[in-house]
């Protein structure tokens, strides 16, 4: 195997990337900020901040609070709305030469469909990621994507009207991740992003207040990695062959490899990019070094290669 030809390139359900490392939604700026801080040709793809039909001012500040090895955030999805995004931000993002995955979010089926339409025929759009962590205006539920029926409905509608790959980003903190992922994929989504940030809260005891202007928020950062790995592992076992983008707590190449071993096809780097804008490239380099150390050719060669006992659900085994 000395002459093995090694490449980091991956094809995740039609989303072709030079490395299996994306910048997660909301952590990549608006197209011009990363220039000079990182070599953008060596980033697999950039996921845009979540775009909504109408523009949003977003949440009041503070929008972030640090917690142990993590942060609680709530930007309130500040974004210029889909029309301004398509007119201004999308071309700017595309100019970086990194494939652009556009994250879309709405409160109703109709909004998701309108967002998808607005992106059709735009060559800059390499894929769509469906943010399902918004409140469900139609069903009056706090988080739309916690119900398989809604995931089906929305992922199905988006997939039907999209010509590019569609990834459903399953909300964090759901007990039935595999069921929600199945709902997305069976209704037409190309794959899933596992997972969004789970709902969280940070409190300022001195001032008897929530840390965030929006009160509640979402957890991100290294603290999350064990939850991400578990979600990826469960979905990869329940739905073999489903393209999975891991998101949550990936900071180093080792973290990324752990996700691949658990079943991911590629990883997203969010919080770590905020701390170290070169992280997405360094993570990819470290993956390359790992592949070399294991003498394999491609990230897909380690995918789902976690050695586990033959038996069934791990939880159950452990409890016998």
């Amino acid at each position, binding site marked *: 195997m000395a002459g093995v030809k090694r490449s980091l390139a991956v094809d995740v359900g039609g989303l072709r990337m030079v490395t299996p490392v994306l910048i997660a939604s*909301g*952590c*990549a*700026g*608006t197209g*011009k*900020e*990363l220039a*000079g*801080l990182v070599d953008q040709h060596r980033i697999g793809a950039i996921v845009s*901040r979540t775009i909504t039909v109408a523009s949003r*001012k*977003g*949440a*009041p*500040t*503070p*929008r*972030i*609070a*640090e917690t*142990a*090895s*993590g*942060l609680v*955030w709530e*930007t309130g999805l*500040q974004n210029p709305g889909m029309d301004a995004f398509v007119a201004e931000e999308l071309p700017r993002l595309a100019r970086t030469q990194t494939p652009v995955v556009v994250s879309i979010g709405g409160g109703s089926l109709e909004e998701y469909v309108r967002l998808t339409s607005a992106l059709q025929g735009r060559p800059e759009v390499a894929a769509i990621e469906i943010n399902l962590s918004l409140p469900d205006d139609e069903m009056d539920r706090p988080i739309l994507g916690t119900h398989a029926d809604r995931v089906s409905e929305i992922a199905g509608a988006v997939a039907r009207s999209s010509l590019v790959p569609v990834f459903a980003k399953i909300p964090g903190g759901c007990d039935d991740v595999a069921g929600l992922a199945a709902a997305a994929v069976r209704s037409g989504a190309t794959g899933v992003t596992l997972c969004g940030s789970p709902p969280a809260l940070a409190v300022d005891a001195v001032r008897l*207040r929530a840390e965030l*202007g*929006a*009160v509640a928020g979402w957890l991100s*950062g*290294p603290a999350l990695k064990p939850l991400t790995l578990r979600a990826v592992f469960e979905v990869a076992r329940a739905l073999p062959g489903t393209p999975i983008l891991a998101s949550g707590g990936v900071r180093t190449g080792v973290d990324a490899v752990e996700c691949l071993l658990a079943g991911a096809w590629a990883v997203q780097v969010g*919080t770590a*990019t*905020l*701390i*170290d*804008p*070169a992280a997405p490239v360094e993570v990819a380099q470290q993956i390359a070094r790992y592949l070399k150390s294991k003498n394999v050719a491609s990230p897909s060669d380690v995918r789902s290669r976690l050695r586990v006992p033959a038996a069934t659900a791990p939880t159950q085994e452990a409890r016998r």
Partner: protein
Amino acid sequence: MRRARAEILSTRRLGAYTTLTLVAPEIAERAKPGQFVAVAMPKGREFILRRHFAVHQASRRGGWAGTLEFVVDASGPGTGWLANARAHETLDVIGPLGRPFAYPKKLTNCVLVAEGRGAATIYFLAQELLARHKRVDMVIGAPDMESVFKPIEAKRLSQTVAVMTADGSLGGRGGVLDALPEALERAKAEVLYAAAPSQTLRSIAELCVARRIPAQVAVEERMGCGYGLCHSCVVPVARKDGSGFDQLRACVDGPVMNPARVLWDRWLSEAPKVLPTPPGGVPVVRDWPGTGEGAWRA
């Protein structure tokens, strides 16, 4: 903007503060008053985000050429760690970041207001204003004598200085606002600059609006990155045309802002933080005389 592994040349305790001098020629060369740097925390800590510090000194010439100085007011784990860093350790620093203070083209009499560690950025600004032959007067405030940053430096840089401490241990007793009106008179102020906690900035803004004094202030908001990636650090700023306001990122569209356009109530109100847009819409803020784009120079 550059990223550097910068060696700490020296550290110094100064009253309540610690100043750090780094060898960071690429950043020092470019840094202007009002800008800041983002310093990475050491690996393996449970606090993970970079910390942000205004540039206090950036030496391009002379024996200190290529060095960069900033001031740490230790108030939590990140600043506490930095305040105890030692010479010869290296820091991962990104900078200079943000929009610097602009200098008036024609107006001459500048009053500079600093509270606490705000003085670090204000003294750097004063040097540059002096180099441009402006008149500088200062109002410096702090809770106590210990927290007045380099009062001698303030004297050296300005025509007149008013020092105010909350406990009266140095200068007058009170806050910068108590001394500001008189200072404005004395200096025949044409332009005001300030770096201070945001509640103080808000009061300064009101004064400037009332007296129609063009002003620039350096704001602080919690930052996730410091270079525009995350939209954490926004400040609501009125559009010039009265069509509403934008949530502008303090890290790329600031930290220096026109206080007359900042929607202070919306930004700083304690509770409820979730403000509805007032029925009358957002106030229309037009430029004051001397505050239009053309009046400033980078």
